[in-house]
């Protein structure tokens, strides 16, 4: 990329004209964080301040473009701060509501954090050992996904507002975000195929389970098992033959591949698979993430009050004019 013209980041310009009020609870805070990373001016109000003085929010939204909130549906209205009431103060107000199940419907008033939302989304069932219990994904995975959708929804509403002059409520449900990830599985179910369940260290994209996690000498690696006779399997067969003088028989023999990979260090395996365009990648520990060379090269981390922390979510680059 060295021959490319010089460029500069414009990420902070994208939303610099937008003022966001963030009253979200911690599980939905990434929505306003993301908008702020694109230059939006974000004012945070804590829930306690809201309950103590509801007028403070009315005053704030009168001057704001976007409100992000994640209270139980109905709770804001009970404080006199429902979308109807706030849009009377500011008809152009865009409200992004991020909740486990959405603003209406039979589960709208159901309580749920990430675990319960993941359960009803169907994502929880899909991870874990084949014969063991389901296990949730790390962190607030579905709510984070919902925060991304909330930001996109805020911008869609901003585009609609330019045409109509009016804001609207953007209703995001963590359950629906998770359920939406099941595209392949739900298609299989609708057509009467068996839906692959959780599969431990293998995944099944429709053509049977493929093992994806393999121990190296000093690390764990992601590498998707090649099916015998396919180009990916032959790439692995070629590599093993070149290194050991012996071609696996049958093609991509699982024990041979496992023993071979276990003899490789992380450094060797990554360099050699890169040259061969084999999709193998070592699994990062927390330390590895913090020291990741790619993230460092891209300037991803910043130094905050509490030490190293992620900076941008996405980059936006403009070319310097000559």
């Amino acid at each position, binding site marked *: 990329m060295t021959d490319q013209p010089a460029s500069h980041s414009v990420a902070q310009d994208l939303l610099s004209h937008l003022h966001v009020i963030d009253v979200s609870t911690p599980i939905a805070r990434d929505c306003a964080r*993301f908008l702020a990373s*694109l230059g939006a001016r974000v004012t945070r109000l804590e829930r306690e301040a809201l309950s103590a003085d509801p007028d403070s929010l009315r005053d704030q939204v009168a001057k704001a473009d976007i409100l992000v909130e994640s209270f139980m549906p109905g709770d804001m209205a009970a404080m006199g701060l429902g979308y109807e009431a706030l849009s009377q103060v500011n008809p152009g107000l865009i409200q992004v509501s991020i909740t486990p199940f959405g603003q209406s419907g039979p*589960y709208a008033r159901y309580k749920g*954090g990430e*675990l*319960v939302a*993941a*359960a*009803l*989304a*169907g994502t*929880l*069932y*899909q*991870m*874990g050992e084949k014969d063991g*219990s*389901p296990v949730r994904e*790390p962190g607030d995975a579905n709510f984070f*996904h919902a925060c*991304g959708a909330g930001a*996109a*929804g805020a*911008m*869609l509403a901003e*585009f609609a507002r330019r045409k109509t002059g009016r804001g*609207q*409520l*953007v*209703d995001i449900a963590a359950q*629906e975000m998770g*359920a939406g990830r*099941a*595209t392949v*599985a739900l*298609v*299989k179910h*609708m*057509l009467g*195929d068996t839906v692959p369940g959780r599969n*431990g*260290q293998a*995944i099944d*994209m429709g053509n049977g389970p493929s093992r994806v*996690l393999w121990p190296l000498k000093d690390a764990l690696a992601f590498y998707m098992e090649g099916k015998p006779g396919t180009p990916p399997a032959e790439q692995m067969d070629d590599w093993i033959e070149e290194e050991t003088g012996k071609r696996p028989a049958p093609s991509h023999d699982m024990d041979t591949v496992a023993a071979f990979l276990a003899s490789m260090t992380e450094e060797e395996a990554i360099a050699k698979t890169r040259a061969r365009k084999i*999709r193998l990648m*070592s*699994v*990062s520990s*927390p330390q590895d993430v913090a020291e*990741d060379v*790619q993230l460092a*090269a*891209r300037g991803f981390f910043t130094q905050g009050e509490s030490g190293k*922390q*992620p900076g941008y*979510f*996405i980059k936006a*680059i*403009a070319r310097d004019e000559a």
Partner: protein
Amino acid sequence: MSDTRPLAGIRIVDFSWAIVGNTTTKLLGDFGAEVWKIESYSRPSMERSRDIVKNDDPASFDNKQWFAQIATSKKSLTPELKDSRGRKFIEDLIREADVVVENFSPGTITRMGFGYDRLRELNPGIILASGSIFGQSGPMSSFPGVDATGAARSGRIAASGHPDGREVLPGLTYGDSVLPFFLVTGILGALDRRERTGEGCWIDGAMQEVLVQQMWPLVSDALSGKPENFRTGNRHPDAAPHNIYPARGEDRWIAIEVWNEPEFAALCKAIGRPELAGDAKFATLAARKRNEDALDAIIAEWTLDKDADASMELLQGAGVAAGTVRTVPEIVDHDPQLKHRGFLEEITHPVIGTFGHQRTPIGMGEGMQRMVHAPLMGHDNREVCKSVLGMDDAMFDALAADGVFGKQR
């Protein structure tokens, strides 16, 4: 009737060939943008060619359910890149477009002749949105990868599984599904900025980075001396009980979360054990964390012989967060909340028939979102040549007869 959707009038050249790009442009199309999907018979979109269900016809590009889900609200164009007239057709579209979307390995779009600098020559205000695993710069940029590659380098795989078990992977995509919403926000922000400044830009979305944003609270805890907070399985360092429990039937489970003392008292009462709330072993969060195995066993004893949905309704009625661990068949056929939200909307595809299509999961007012069935291969070549590029039928027919738009295999 005029199109009331927010993105009506915005035009997208779509080079997507896998989940990240295709989900991004589905969203843009569902909300009103005109999406010109550039495909070819020689290199079709991944979802068009993979037979994921046994009754797909491998000889056809037009009967793939996966593609039907992920390519709603797009137009299909099939110019041959090897033909200079096919390339000119794409260049002419780029001149008319607002945004180009692609998700190739970094460097590929430039080698194809449609890199950002070439796009700017064709259309100075163009916005390019690129989705990739590692981003467009840096030492690992060109590494080949998939959804799990990004997960591997974010801490996500290392944090997945039970604390006393092996690392596991989810049977569903995550990074592939999440990145599109960040790309869309960037694209719309870039359009907004272009209106103010007249200048386009290049949106560079890296799956690894978005996933590290998601994982950072856990990574940061682990680095600051709380490694027990990294791989917690179904438990949570700040809540107890917080787990799944067996329910009646094979492989049936219910999730329960308790975040404060009133919720714990409500749970104890609901399961017929009100005395537990005052028991020194469980009376505070710290005590419950110390005795979590014993507490989980007591709850499991109650859930074990009960229907999961019945327990969920009873506990939710008592003010306790609880949810059945749903299977995929249940989210399609049974879950009343997803039905209420219109998670799947029946529309008719000319080859596959009428079936539930996944809407883009952003709830907005009437008239904001509408799905049109996924296009048949090459369906819109003639219409786009005429309406966008001003050709007449004879001009189009001459190009088509020469194979500029490819041939059915």
